[in-house]
């Protein structure tokens, strides 16, 4: 692929910046099982980067490596020009890498608002003791964060469920709340693990629109996993295709679509 250096502008006028994160020769093994085999790719600032592949291709594992939930057996993760050492997931989150989960991980007992507020924990300054001693200052800080959260709530059109405990929401809305919580962290990279899984057509269209709007409005760098080819092709700037833990394609959607390996992986190939 040709080097694009400091970035470029897409045909629809969005600015794509330089490389933000680079994965170098990532291999992930669980005992004898190889989940990811020597994969390298990069993520540019402001782009929507998709990882696609059939079930069991290692897409979620890849996302877990990026978010620190898995530590790669071999290989390096470079973020903003620096090599990232071994880190716990909460430390990765504090670097500004927010994520959603395939099977939704929300705080069921808490309200939608409180759930989204947890997304801002890493951005809150006052510590335990200053909160106890200068209650007024902490309260002011809380208000400020609350305002940001309200903006996200408006943006994702979930105003009317603000006070509802998350456990009572239907699936589609839960997915949206999870997105809101990730956005609340004002992430440098937003990781979405199958944001459209299990949704009906209408919900999928909504979610697509939100992902595009978020990227447009805040310039959020987004990495998403999906196995529905159609959705991904419309949404993303560049696509990584995985199959059996290997990378079999990488590039703009139209290029990947015509890649013979990718077609084989998706449609199956007759072995002679």
């Amino acid at each position, binding site marked *: 692929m040709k080097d694009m250096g400091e970035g470029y502008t897409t045909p629809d006028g969005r600015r794509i910046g330089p490389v933000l994160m680079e994965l170098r020769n990532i291999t992930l093994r669980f005992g004898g099982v190889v989940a990811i085999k020597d994969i390298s790719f990069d993520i540019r600032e402001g782009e929507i980067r998709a990882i696609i592949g059939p079930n069991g291709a290692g897409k979620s594992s890849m996302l877990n490596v990026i*978010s620190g*939930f898995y530590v790669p057996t071999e290989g390096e993760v470079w973020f903003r020009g620096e090599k990232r050492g071994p880190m*716990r*997931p*909460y*430390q990765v*989150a*504090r670097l500004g890498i*927010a*994520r959603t*989960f395939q099977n939704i*991980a*929300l*705080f*069921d*007992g*808490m309200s939608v608002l*409180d759930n989204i*507020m*947890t*997304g801002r*924990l*890493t951005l*809150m300054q*006052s510590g*335990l003791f200053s*909160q106890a001693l200068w209650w007024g200052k*902490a*309260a002011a800080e*809380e208000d400020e964060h609350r305002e940001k959260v309200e903006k996200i709530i408006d943006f994702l059109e979930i105003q009317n469920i603000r006070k509802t405990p998350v*456990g*009572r929401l239907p699936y589609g809305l839960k997915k949206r709340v999870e997105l809101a*919580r*990730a956005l609340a*962290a004002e992430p440098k990279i937003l990781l979405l693990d199958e944001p459209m899984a299990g949704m009906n057509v209408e919900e999928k269209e909504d979610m697509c629109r939100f992902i595009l709007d978020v990227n447009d409005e805040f310039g959020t760098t987004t990495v998403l996993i999906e196995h529905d080819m159609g959705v991904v092709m419309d949404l993303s700037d560049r696509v990584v295709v995985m199959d059996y833990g290997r990378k079999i394609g990488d590039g703009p959607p139209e290029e990947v679509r015509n890649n013979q390996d990718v077609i084989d992986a998706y449609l199956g190939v007759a072995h002679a």
Partner: protein
Amino acid sequence: MLEQLTYASEAALNGLMAGVMYSLVALGFVLIYKSSGVFNYAQGVMALFAALTLVGIQNGQVPFAHLINAVTGGHLESFGWQVPAVLAILLTIGVMVGMAIAIEKLVLKHLVNQAPIILFMATIGLAYFLEGFGDVMWGADIKTLDVGLPQGINETVESLTGAWFGYGFFIDNLDIVAAVVSVALVAALTVFSQYSKQGRALRAVADDHQAALSVGISLRFIWILVWSIAGFVALVAGIMWGSKSGVQFSLSLIALKALPVLMLGGFTSIPGAIVGGLIIGMGEKLFEFFIGPMIGGATENWFAYVLALIFLVFRPQGLFGERIIERV
């Protein structure tokens, strides 16, 4: 008849005060349960350990004196100084925080993602360990705890009620102090858990570990924080109960009284622990007063447990517990 009513109100009032003491212990359980889903069997022993440590520091006792004497053949007993109560309490808080860190490092850290029952078993182990450790550290003899809390009959209450009803109520000063302290403690804890950053993080960890990690919450920090707070609550309970009835092994058994309180109030609710304690405290005194004489007395020993059983049948989540909803 009127006289009967006066006696009953005195019993009820005393029951409320006793209930506050139960609530104090129950509170420690609720805190840990809410934030880590673990039922901390060791809470009662923690109260004992905190009280032992406080007395030990106050009297300038040498920790592990018996052990040291047995090994070296010396006769160490005491440093020979007295530490003022406030300073001793602060030092004890320090010890409880140290204990929280040790528990996280030695026990919890190795049990991440284990089933709640495993963690529960670990707290049983912890209870027995702490019990023995407390003995070795400070000796097994019965100690009196005096941090300067007022004790004995409250004369204001006595003279006021005497003027109103022609009969002065007996209310212990210590109970009144305990009630005030509990109310303050509960208010502080509620504000902390509902409105502070760490409180929100704490509730988040209780709900979902993975999600908590993904928003940048360090589980280890939260656990240390929770166990420190539980240690602090144990210390408060230890001071109140220790002042009342001396510091000795039976102090750890007050945890048993907290169980029915929790079943009544719900394991997840701080206000529930308070209301549950009050209901049980008052209920057992009134039951003893009205029904006791008919069935030969001594009902206080079992009344709380029977009440809890009845609650288990009709409202298993307790009065204030979160409704258990199962989505199909």
